């Protein structure tokens, strides 16, 4: 009772004074017992008057009595110093026993500082505003509903509250303030869905209170919110679905969205670094595409980008113009001299900082494993001492032209029978050129090679044993070959040769032949080829792993180049020969780029797959056959922070069969504490001495860089099953806390005075009528 009263009284115990309301009644009763006695002569008139007035007198006495009781009641009430909550407050603070859950968005966009108002403007970050909002809520709760509890969560750690205060005492307020002081923004992106899901789960299991108010304090970026919307699960639509599911029928959960975002804040960010090719080879230029987004409302001019690789700053590059809301993709060409671990570090420099609210997303790093070369093994199916009769001479020359320029490809040629003896693991690409048959053992070896990420290129030729090929290489779709071979097709005599009629120009292998260069490819004459049994063009091939990249112009539109993904590697099947026996491709200009690109394409990618976003888990493969399982990790803060020692877990390679798995276990080290963006370095100790370095990078979530907030209407309609309150201006929250309760004891006293006058007036009037 008293605790309930405390919701609107300063001194709840004072309300006990309301018991004094009995006093006028007592006085009335007692006064009836005390009277003077008068022996009266004119009794008849008195009795007459009494008879006529009895009812009125009683009524008047009752009125006066009620009035006096009311006065005492009001007086007691006034002494209890009552207050009422302002309208906003009333909507925020529920009834008794409410659990207040505050979720503070600590994603990096919250560090935004509006720079548009430079001169003496608001230098507070969104996160500071958010903290102030949390304090305001704490104050609101403390002042209005003492029996409630507060839990504070940050979005990056939704599994456990930062603070869980049972009540709202001064001590708890201090704890809240202290807890807030320790908080700062993380470098993560926003993850509303995960946070709300986790908190809902905890609420469902732990809460003992009837009602819950969930306060989400954030800049409510459109991108975050939309992503959360997309991930909405069971329990209705919208990002608040997990809460809505908790709400149930009782309507006991409410949601208050406090928008502390800087509406005017613009931002510029490096949002992506993409490599044109999966390969970076030492000495060969690697092209990257750097994406720079302009999320402000003004066009950006002459954006300067600082570019760095290991040990070297490259000359800065300048982007001429980025229109508002646009993302510029700029190519950056880097040549790594050395093979091994390297990276590309791109950072916005200097310019346009007045448009940039968030600094974290101005830098982005891509880790790169630079390969010494693309080691290619060519299996020659028709070797000959005559270079021009040799099956692979032209191919070999095309892959590794003579002269100073390096193609980045190293070629080793073996004959058909020697496959068994070669250690394939040191190669990235294997080319089978006009190989008549692949022995079963060699076939297994190749499968393991491709499965672990290697590339296989199969050229056709007159020696290929079709039946054997279909049996071992195709193996009913389980093998390396994309499609079975139907037989050898030759161009009809006298007629025009078969040509390459159609191809997928977007495919990396044929990328060069788009536009005017396409004619080069059309001029290639093909006299014979292996006709593969293929689905007719246009038919759905998604069920098969074979992808036709190019077709001939024969009656069947036979596939000429077909790709198949196999494990982590891939196979490219080319139906015609590598030499000029079946075609004149090698004398065409298109031959050289085609074989080079194809080799690059199928080669085991060397760009790192280890780059993650902040908060995600870094992984690094550890081959227990090569390196020790104990791995050292240097974080970006090294050498200030010490090295971290990690141990590799063994895991079977994905997609492989059990037998292969047993022989080639691949380990992995994982590191989950990627709170800070930057370059991480793994040091792997070789079994036979020496160290392998691997870079990995942790980058900010690029979607977080778009600060534009979700529309208030969107927020308001965030759930169809939940009461959602949106507070756009955090100042109103602070004001609500300050003006949270308005005392009105003095009007009560005025009322008491007024009622006393009324009482006197009535008493006089009742007594002196007539």
């Amino acid at each position, binding site marked *: 009772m008293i605790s309930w009263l405390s919701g609107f009284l300063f001194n709840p115990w004072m309300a006990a004074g309301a018991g004094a309301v009995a006093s006028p009644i007592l006085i009335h009763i007692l*006064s*009836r017992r*005390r*009277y*003077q*006695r*008068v*022996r*009266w*002569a*004119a*009794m*008849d*008139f*008195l*009795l*007459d*008057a*009494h008879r*006529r*007035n009895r009812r009125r*007198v009683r009524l*008047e*006495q009752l009125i006066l009595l009620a009035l006096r009781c009311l006065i005492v009641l009001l007086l007691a009430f006034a002494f209890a110093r009552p207050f009422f909550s302002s309208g906003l407050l009333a909507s925020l603070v529920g009834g008794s026993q409410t659990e207040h859950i505050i979720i503070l968005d600590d994603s990096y966009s919250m560090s935004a500082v509006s720079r548009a108002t430079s001169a003496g403007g608001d230098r507070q970050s969104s996160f500071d505003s958010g903290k102030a909002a949390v304090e305001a809520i704490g104050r609101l709760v403390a002042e209005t509903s003492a029996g409630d509890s507060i839990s504070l969560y940050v979005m990056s750690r939704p599994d456990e509250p930062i603070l869980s205060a049972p009540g709202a005492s001064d001590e708890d307020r201090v704890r809240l303030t202290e807890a807030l002081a320790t908080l700062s923004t993380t470098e993560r992106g926003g993850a509303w869905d995960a946070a709300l899901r986790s908190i809902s789960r905890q609420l469902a299991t732990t809460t003992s209170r009837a009602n819950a108010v969930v306060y989400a304090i954030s800049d409510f970026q459109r991108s975050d919110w939309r992503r959360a919307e997309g991930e909405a699960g069971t329990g209705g639509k919208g990002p608040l679905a997990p809460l809505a599911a908790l709400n149930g029928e009782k309507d006991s959960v409410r949601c208050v969205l406090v928008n502390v975002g800087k509406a005017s804040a613009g931002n510029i960010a490096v949002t992506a670094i993409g490599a044109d090719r999966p390969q970076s080879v030492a000495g060969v230029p690697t092209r990257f595409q750097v994406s720079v987004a302009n999320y402000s409302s003004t066009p950006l001019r002459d954006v300067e980008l600082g570019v760095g690789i290991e040990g070297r700053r490259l000359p800065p590059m300048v982007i001429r113009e980025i229109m508002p809301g646009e993302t510029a993709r700029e190519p950056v060409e880097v040549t790594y001299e050395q093979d091994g671990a390297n990276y590309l570090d791109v950072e916005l420099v200097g310019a346009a900082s007045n448009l940039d609210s968030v600094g974290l997303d101005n830098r982005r790093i891509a880790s790169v494993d630079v390969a010494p070369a693309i080691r290619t093994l060519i299996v020659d199916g028709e070797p000959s001492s005559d270079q021009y009769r040799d099956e692979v001479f032209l191919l070999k020359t095309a892959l590794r032209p003579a002269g100073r320029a390096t193609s980045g490809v190293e070629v080793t040629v073996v004959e058909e029978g020697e496959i068994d003896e070669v250690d394939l693991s040191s190669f990235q690409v294997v080319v089978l050129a006009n190989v008549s048959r692949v022995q079963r053992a060699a076939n297994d070896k190749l499968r393991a090679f491709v499965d672990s990420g290697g590339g296989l290129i199969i050229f056709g030729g007159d020696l290929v044993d079709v039946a054997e090929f279909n049996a071992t290489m195709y193996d009913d779709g389980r093998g390396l070959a994309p499609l079975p071979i139907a037989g050898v097709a030759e161009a009809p005599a006298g007629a025009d040769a078969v040509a390459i009629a159609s191809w997928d120009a977007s495919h990396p292998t044929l990328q060069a032949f788009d536009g005017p260069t396409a004619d080069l490819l059309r001029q290639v004459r093909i006299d014979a080829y292996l006709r593969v049994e293929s689905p007719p063009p246009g038919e759905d091939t998604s069920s098969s792993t074979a992808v036709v990249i190019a077709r001939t112009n024969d009656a069947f539109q036979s596939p000429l180049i077909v790709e198949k993904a196999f494990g982590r590697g891939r196979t490219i099947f080319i139906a015609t020969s590598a030499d000029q026996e079946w075609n004149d491709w090698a004398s065409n200009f298109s031959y050289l780029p085609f074989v080079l690109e194809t080799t690059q394409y199928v080669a085991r990618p060397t760009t790192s797959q280890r780059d993650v976003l902040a908060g995600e888990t870094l992984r690094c493969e550890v081959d227990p056959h090569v390196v020790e399982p104990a791995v050292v990790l240097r974080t970006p803060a090294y050498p200030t922070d010490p090295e971290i020692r990690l141990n590799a877990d063994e895991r079977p390679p994905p997609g492989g069969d059990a037998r292969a798995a047993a022989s080639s276990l691949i380990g992995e080290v994982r590191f989950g504490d990627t709170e800070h963006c930057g370059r991480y370095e793994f040091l792997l100790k070789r079994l036979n001495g020496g160290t392998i370095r691997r870079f990995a990078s942790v980058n900010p979530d690029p979607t977080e860089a778009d600060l534009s907030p979700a529309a208030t209407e969107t927020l308001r309609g965030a759930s169809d099953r939940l009461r959602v309150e949106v507070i756009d201006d955090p100042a109103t929250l602070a004001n609500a806390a300050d003006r949270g309760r308005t005392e009105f004891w003095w009007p009560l006293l005025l009322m008491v005075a007024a009622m006393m006058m009324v009482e006197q007036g009535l008493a006089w009037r*009742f*007594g*002196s*009528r*007539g």
Partner: protein
Amino acid sequence: MANDARKYLKPELLARIGDLEMRARLVVEGFVSGMHRSPYHGVSVEFAQHKEYVAGDDLRHLDWRVFGRSDRFYIKQYEEETNLRLHIVLDSSLSMRYPEHLDRDDRLTKFEYAATLAASLAFLLTHQQDAAGLIIFDDEIRAEAPPLSSQGHLRLLVERLERARLERANDPRATLPHIAGRLHRRSMVALISDLLFDVDVLIPTLERIRHAGHEVVVFHTLDHDERTFPFANNTLFEGLEAPDQQILVDPQALRSAYLEALSAHETAIRRACSNSRIEFVSLSTADPLDVALRAYLAARMRQVKAGA
């Protein structure tokens, strides 16, 4: 001197004087001193004879013309003619005792006031050579004296008044008609009472007396409390005449209704009196007594004029 005499018209001063005769004397003297004309003279006095002056005779009655002619002192002697008889009818019922129990020295009870008025009238009349008689009644006639005009009779009246005991309730139904029956010669009747009884009995009786040719003055004597009802606190009212009648009330709440009832009662009587050409004097024990005396004199003047 005149003021000194007049101050005894005030009841609160009279209350301090125990002796009724003294009280009456003071009242009348005070009253007379305030008048321009002495009420004792020029009133129906007829010359009878001269008599030689002897020491002790009233010098006022010296006949100066005879003295001028004969150098002898002669006293004019008048025929003593009593042309007015006043029956003072005084109510001595229990109700007249109010506010006896309140124990206040400075207040006269209604009866004391009434008795003072009666004695004053008797005093005045005796000195005017009129005859004053007395009937004291409650539920029956308690004392009676025929109207006579002598100093000795005045003393008798005062004694009767002082001996009155207020012990019985009133019963106007029984006594009033009886009193009416006692009045034979044309005379004046002064009824001094609180009139706390039934109008239906009182008015016919008064009318009957009036029709019998008597001049009537009604002194409606009520206590100041009864006229103003000044009580504030809770009060238990107990009937003076019927102690079993008790009510505990908040007097303020009843005041207006009570006054209304009282006023209605008095208005009824006053109207009846007016119709019958009866002098009605409303008195409060707080009123100075000259009010009553003046009213009596006015009535007497009418009587004289009517007689003439």
